[in-house]
């Protein structure tokens, strides 16, 4: 993926997030950073009060985040389909039944689970950067 395409994806995801009615209504305390590990691509998302503060598609080894959601590229592709197939339709489903792993400070994930669940479903509109 070229830098131009990467930037277009970041811009698209940010616009979808920041204009999302649910996140605007409930995201006041949605402040955290997390990594989406898709094998070939890693997406470091930094949130501040429900808005995207920064997205890094090339995080370095010392870039910090609160928690990570890791899965194979295939799992993320199915997860981000407009209508995902069974067992790929959420992070709980894919963790219990497929290869997704929730790692790091899971407490922060749980504290933000409502908004995080909504935000991850934006991937079904933006698709994923792989």
């Amino acid at each position, binding site marked *: 993926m070229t830098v131009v395409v990467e930037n277009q994806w970041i811009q698209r995801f940010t616009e979808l997030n920041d204009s999302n009615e649910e996140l605007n209504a409930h995201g006041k305390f949605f402040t955290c950073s997390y990594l989406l590990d898709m094998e070939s691509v890693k997406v470091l998302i930094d949130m501040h009060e429900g808005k995207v503060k920064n997205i890094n598609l090339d995080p370095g080894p010392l870039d910090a985040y609160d928690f990570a959601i890791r899965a194979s590229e295939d799992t993320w592709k199915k997860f981000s389909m407009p*209508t*995902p197939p*069974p*067992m790929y*339709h*959420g*992070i*709980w*489903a894919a963790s*219990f*039944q497929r290869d997704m792993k929730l790692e790091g400070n*899971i*407490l922060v994930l*749980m*504290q933000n*689970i*409502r908004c995080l*669940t909504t935000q991850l479903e934006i991937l079904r509109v933006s698709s994923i950067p792989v």
Partner: protein
Amino acid sequence: MTKAKFSPVLGRYVTIDVEGEEYKVFYLENGTGQPLVCQHTAGCHNHQWRGLLEDEEITSKYRVIAYDLPRHGKSDPPSNTEWWKEEYKLSAEFFMKFIVTLCDALELENPIFMGSSFGGNIALQLALHHPDRFDAVIPVEAADYSPGFYLDWWHHPHANASQVCASGVWDLMAPQSPDKDRWATWFYYSQGAESFKGDLHFYSVDHDLRGKLEQIQGDKVKVIMLTGTYDYLTTTEDGRRTASQIKNAEFIEMVDIGHFPMSENYEVFKKYLEQALNSIQAVKA
């Protein structure tokens, strides 16, 4: 002015004694005919059955009764004990005694028992231990064993327990289910955090019928299991495996629906429920 619209569903309380504890139980009911007793899922309440309770086709043939288990909805914890001094951990034994006592109190003859999730698991337990009290059971989203959901996260004081419970079960529902019904189910789950973990003690710890399913007298109590393809906790493979070990049992796979079928998409659930009810009536014919 728009004319007010009244539902035919009526609510009532009944006070019963279970193991020396007094419970004032709230239930909703509508219809006439064979009793169809409905148990909600863990950490939830009887509004999950709102579609069924108002379904004229079903209630013209069945007396649908959906109760709130104690500590859920409008059914309080026991009124004569200091329940707040003990950790709530639901057991199969209490769960069954409560249901049988309630059915006796309501003088229900030949009831069909239907429950989803932990309600489905207790349906299997009832079939094993009380085959003479029920005409049939419909375990929905059930299995012989369902470990892995008795989690501290449902109670963690550093997180918003209401949202953890409600959004934690979000993807137990199918993405095809209507938004308004998924969010209604989410809303119910935001109300039940204090009971959810204790309920799951039964669901994931105390309930274990592995090696016992062949003891269920399927010729006395008909067992028809229903499981949705989007249920990641008790999968269709779990349901099929469980039903295959019960004499005369049937398994029905429900396509494009999840773990709360009656609440997340009643229209889809209804066609499978009718199939199950027809199968029960066919046995009698």
